C-alpha cells in the first residue's frame, strides 16, 4: 500500500473525482426518492457513476470501495436491462445511501492521509442479496423484500465463540447448489462470507467467486472451500446447511499439517515500486517541489469553479477595455502629461500581466490527463496478462480546463476498452504475425480550429458481422444491415448498453463506457468517430471544438462588421489585379493564382453586409485553406493579427438558427465583437 500514496496528485484527483461523483449520485437518489420514479435516465446515470467509481477505485487499489461499487453496478445493470417493475424504492434508496455514506467515510479517511481500511463486504453482500431477491421475485407481487433482517440473522455466531474452542482445525467442503437456482456465484459468495465470521482464514476455489463468469463453473462443479477455524465441525456444518437451494455438501476434516501447508500465504501481488513515467514537468509536480515536507493532508491544488474563472476573465477583459478608455481618452489628447503617461504605462503593464495570468489559469496541458493513462494501461494489462505499450504524442497540447475535466473520463474508458477489447493476448498476436506487445497510441493535435485526440490500437479491430448481429438484437438497426456503411456499423458501439464482449470484467465490457464518452463529449460540443480495420486495429478520434480555446486570429473588416479568421487557415492575403480575375457564365468569380484557380467568396454578399468596397481590386483577398481545399474571401481590409478567446454564440441564437460559417465570436481590444469564421462552413452557405 505504501506505493499508493507516492503519487499524491493521482490520489488527489481520485478524491476530487469520486467526491464529485458521489455528490452527483446522492442528488440523483434524493430526486428518485422524492419523486418515487424510476426514470431510465436515472438508472443509466447511477450505473455510469458506479462504473466510474468502480474503475477508478480498482485502479487506486481501494478494493473495498471498488467491490461495493461493483455490487451496486450489478444491481443497476439488472434494473437497466430487465426493467423489473416491482422494486421497493425506499429500500433501494436506503441501500444506496448506505453505500454512499460508506464511500464518503472512506474518502474522508483518504483525505486525512489514512488508509481506507473499512470492510465493505457486508454492505456489498446486502446489495447482492437485494439483487437476488429482486431476481427471484415473482413479477406479480407488489413490494416484498426485506433482505437485510434475514441477512443479519445469519451472522448469529458471536465472535466470542471463536475463543471458546482453542484448537485450530482445518476443514474442506465442496458445496453444490440445486439446478436452476441461478446466481450461483452470489450464493457462493454469501456462503463464504458467512463462513468468514466463524473462521480464521478461508481459501475458496474458484477464486474471485463473485465474478459473474464463475457462475457457470459453480453450477457444474460446485465450489470448494478450505476452512481454517477454531469452531467445531458441527457448527460449521450447521451453518452450511442453512444455505438456501443447497443440493449437496461434501464435508471432511483435513489433517493439521496438510492444512497449514495449504494456508501458507503466497506472496500476494508484489507491486513494482516504480512505475516509469516519462518526466514531463506538470504544474502539479512543480507545486509539489515547493512544498518542503509533503504531507498527505496538504492540498496544493484547490478546485475553483469554472464559472468563477469565467467571471474573472470577463472582468479582466472589461478592465483592459476600461484602461484603454481612460488612457486614450479624447479629453487627454494634445496634452503634455508626463507623469500621467508614466502611470498609464504602469497600469497597462499590470493589466496585461493580469490578463495573461487569467488566461493561463484556464489553459492546462493534456499531459496530466495523458500520464494517468500509463497507470491504467499498466494495471489492466497486468491483470489480463497482456503486453501493452502506450505511446503519447503531443501531450503538451494545451486545452481549456473545462475540456480537460470532460475528457478525463472518456479517455480512461477508451484506453481501458482498447486494452481490454482491442489488444489480443500475446500468443494470439504472434499467431497473427504481429508484435507480441500490443501498442496503443494516444495522440493530441491542433487541427484547424479543433483539437483532435486519437486513440489508436493495433489490436483485433471491430468485427462488422458481430456488431450488426448485436445491433439487431438490441434493436438499434432499423434498416437492411447490408445498406449500413462501415462507419455506421462501427458507430453502433457508441450506444448505451452495447457490448460485444461476453465477459464482464472489472475494467470494462458492459457497453457503458462508450456511452459515457459520447455524453461527456456532447457536453463540450465535441464529437467522436470510430474507424477500424479487422486485425489491424481501431482508431477512435475525439474532436473537441474550439469553444473557449484561444486561437490566433486575423481580424478583418467588412463595412462596419469585424470578422476573425483563424490564422491556421490563412495562407496569404493580397490585393488582386484585374488580369487575375475570371468570371464564368454563371457569375461565379474565380481567381488565377500561380496556375491554379480558386473560388472567390464575397463576405459582404454572403452575410449581407453593407460596404462601399464592392470592386475586387479595391478589397483584399484572403486565401484560406481547410482540408486541403483553398478558396478566397473578399474583405475590405485587414486589421491585424492577435490571439483571441473564442466565445460561443449565445444559446438563444444557436437555438434559433444554425449559422453556417461561424465558429463563434470574440471580443476585440476595444470591446467590440468580432465573429469568427469557420472556413470549412463558408463553402456551404
Amino acid at each position, binding site marked *: 500500500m505504501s506505493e499508493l500514496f507516492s503519487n499524491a496528485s493521482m490520489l488527489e484527483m481520485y478524491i476530487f473525482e469520486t467526491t464529485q461523483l458521489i455528490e452527483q449520485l446522492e442528488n440523483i437518489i434524493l430526486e428518485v426518492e422524492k419523486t418515487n420514479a424510476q426514470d431510465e435516465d436515472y438508472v443509466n446515470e447511477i450505473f455510469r457513476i458506479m462504473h466510474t467509481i468502480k474503475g477508478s477505485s480498482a485502479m487506486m487499489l481501494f478494493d473495498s470501495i471498488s467491490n461495493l461499487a461493483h455490487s451496486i453496478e450489478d444491481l443497476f445493470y439488472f434494473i437497466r436491462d430487465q426493467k423489473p417493475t416491482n422494486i421497493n424504492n425506499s429500500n433501494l434508496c436506503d441501500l444506496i445511501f448506505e453505500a454512499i455514506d460508506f464511500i464518503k467515510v472512506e474518502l474522508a479517511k483518504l483525505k486525512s492521509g489514512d488508509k481506507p481500511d473499512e470492510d465493505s463486504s457486508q454492505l456489498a453482500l446486502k446489495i447482492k442479496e437485494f439483487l437476488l431477491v429482486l431476481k427471484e421475485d415473482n413479477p406479480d407481487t407488489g413490494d416484498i423484500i426485506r433482505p437485510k433482517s434475514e441477512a443479519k440473522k445469519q451472522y448469529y455466531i458471536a465472535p466470542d465463540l471463536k475463543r471458546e474452542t482453542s484448537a485450530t482445525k482445518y476443514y474442506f467442503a465442496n458445496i453444490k447448489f440445486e439446478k436452476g437456482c441461478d446466481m450461483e456465484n452470489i450464493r457462493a459468495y454469501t456462503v463464504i462470507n458467512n463462513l468468514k465470521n466463524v473462521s480464521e482464514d478461508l481459501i475458496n476455489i474458484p477464486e474471485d467467486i463473485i465474478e459473474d463468469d464463475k457462475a457457470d463453473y459453480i453450477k457444474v462443479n460446485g465450489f470448494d472451500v478450505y476452512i481454517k477455524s477454531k469452531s467445531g465441525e458441527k457448527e460449521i456444518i450447521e451453518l452450511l446447511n442453512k444455505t438456501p437451494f443447497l443440493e449437496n455438501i461434501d464435508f471432511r476434516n483435513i489433517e493439521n499439517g496438510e492444512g497449514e501447508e495449504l494456508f501458507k500465504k503466497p506472496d500476494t501481488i508484489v507491486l513494482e515500486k516504480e512505475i516509469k513515467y516519462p518526466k514531463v514537468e506538470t504544474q502539479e509536480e512543480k507545486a509539489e517541489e515547493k512544498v518542503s515536507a509533503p504531507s498527505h493532508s496538504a492540498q496544493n491544488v484547490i478546485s475553483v469553479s469554472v464559472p468563477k474563472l469565467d467571471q474573472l476573465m470577463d472582468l479582466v477583459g472589461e478592465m483592459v477595455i476600461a484602461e484603454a478608455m481612460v488612457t486614450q481618452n479624447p479629453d487627454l489628447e494634445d496634452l503634455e502629461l508626463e507623469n500621467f503617461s508614466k502611470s498609464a504605462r504602469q497600469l497597462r503593464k499590470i493589466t496585461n500581466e493580469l490578463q495573461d495570468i487569467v488566461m493561463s489559469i484556464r489553459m492546462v496541458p493534456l499531459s496530466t490527463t495523458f500520464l494517468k493513462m500509463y497507470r491504467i494501461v499498466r494495471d489492466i494489462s497486468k491483470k489480463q496478462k497482456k503486453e501493452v505499450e502506450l505511446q503519447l504524442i503531443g501531450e503538451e497540447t494545451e486545452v481549456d480546463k473545462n475540456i480537460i475535466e470532460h475528457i478525463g473520463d472518456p479517455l480512461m474508458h477508451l484506453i481501458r476498452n482498447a486494452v481490454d477489447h482491442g489488444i489480443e493476448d500475446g500468443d494470439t498476436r504472434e499467431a497473427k504475425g504481429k508484435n507480441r506487445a500490443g501498442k496503443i497510441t494516444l495522440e493530441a493535435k491542433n487541427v484547424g480550429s479543433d483539437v483532435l485526440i486519437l486513440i489508436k490500437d493495433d489490436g483485433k479491430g471491430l468485427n462488422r458481422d458481430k456488431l450488426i448481429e448485436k445491433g439487431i438484437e438490441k434493436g438499434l438497426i432499423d434498416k437492411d444491415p447490408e445498406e449500413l456503411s462501415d462507419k455506421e456499423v462501427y458507430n453502433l458501439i457508441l450506444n448505451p448498453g452495447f457490448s460485444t464482449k461476453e465477459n464482464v470484467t472489472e475494467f470494462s465490457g458492459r457497453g457503458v463506457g462508450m456511452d459515457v464518452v459520447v455524453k461527456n463529449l456532447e457536453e463540450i460540443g465535441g464529437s467522436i468517430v470510430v474507424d477500424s480495420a479487422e486485425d489491424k486495429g481501431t482508431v477512435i478520434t475525439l474532436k473537441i471544438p474550439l469553444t473557449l480555446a484561444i486561437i490566433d486570429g486575423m481580424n478583418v473588416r467588412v463595412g462596419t462588421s469585424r470578422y476573425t479568421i483563424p490564422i491556421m487557415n490563412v495562407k496569404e492575403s493580397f490585393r488582386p489585379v484585374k488580369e487575375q480575375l475570371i468570371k464564368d457564365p454563371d457569375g461565379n468569380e474565380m481567381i488565377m493564382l500561380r496556375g491554379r484557380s480558386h473560388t472567390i467568396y464575397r463576405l459582404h454578399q454572403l452575410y449581407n453586409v453593407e460596404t462601399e468596397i464592392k470592386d475586387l481590386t479595391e478589397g483584399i483577398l484572403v486565401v484560406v485553406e481547410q482540408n486541403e481545399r483553398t478558396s478566397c474571401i473578399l474583405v475590405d481590409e485587414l486589421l491585424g493579427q492577435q490571439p483571441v478567446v473564442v466565445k460561443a454564440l449565445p444559446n438563444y441564437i444557436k437555438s434559433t*438558427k444554425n449559422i453556417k460559417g461561424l465558429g463563434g465570436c470574440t471580443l476585440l481590444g476595444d470591446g467590440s465583437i468580432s465573429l469568427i469564421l469557420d472556413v470549412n462552413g463558408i463553402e456551404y452557405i
Partner: protein
Amino acid sequence: MTKDLIEDIDEYEEDTQKDKYLTFQVDEESYGIAIGIVTEIIGIQPITQVPELPEYIRGIINLRGKIIPVMDVRMRFKMDFKEYNDRTCIIVIEVKDMSVGLIVDSVSDVLNIPEEEVVLPPELQKKSNKYIEAIGKVDRSIVLILDCDKLLRDEDYTKIKEIEKDEE
C-alpha cells in the same frame, strides 16, 4: 422561532417581486414584463450584426464581457424599424438560462398590478395576441403583459416563414 423568521424573510423577498411589472413603451402601447426575469436595463449599445438570423434579432452585444443577443421588440411585433435614440433602452431578461436583450422605445416605470387587476386577453381569432399573456389595468390605462417565453421562442418564426411561403 428562527425558522418562522426565515420563512418570513423568504416570503418577504418573494413578495417584493410579486405583482410587480416593468413597463415600457413600444409605439403607442404600454407593455409589461414580470420584474423577476429582468436582469438589468441598459442604454442602447453598439450592436454586432449576425448574419442569417430573423430580422428582429438585431445581433449581439458585449455586456461586460458577456455576449448576449438583442431583439428589437418593435420588429418582433412586425412594426417598422425606428431609428434608435437616447430614449431607446435594452431590457436584459433571463428566461430558461438564456439572457436576451429586448430593444424597446423607452422604459416607463415599475408598477404594482395586483392579481385582481389582471385579466386574460380576449380570445381573438387572429393570432395577433399570441405574445400577450394577460392585460393589467392601472388607473385608467392598460398594460399588455408579455409572455416572454413565447416572445423568444423561434417556432413562430418558422411558422411565419411557412405561412409566407404558402401565401407566395
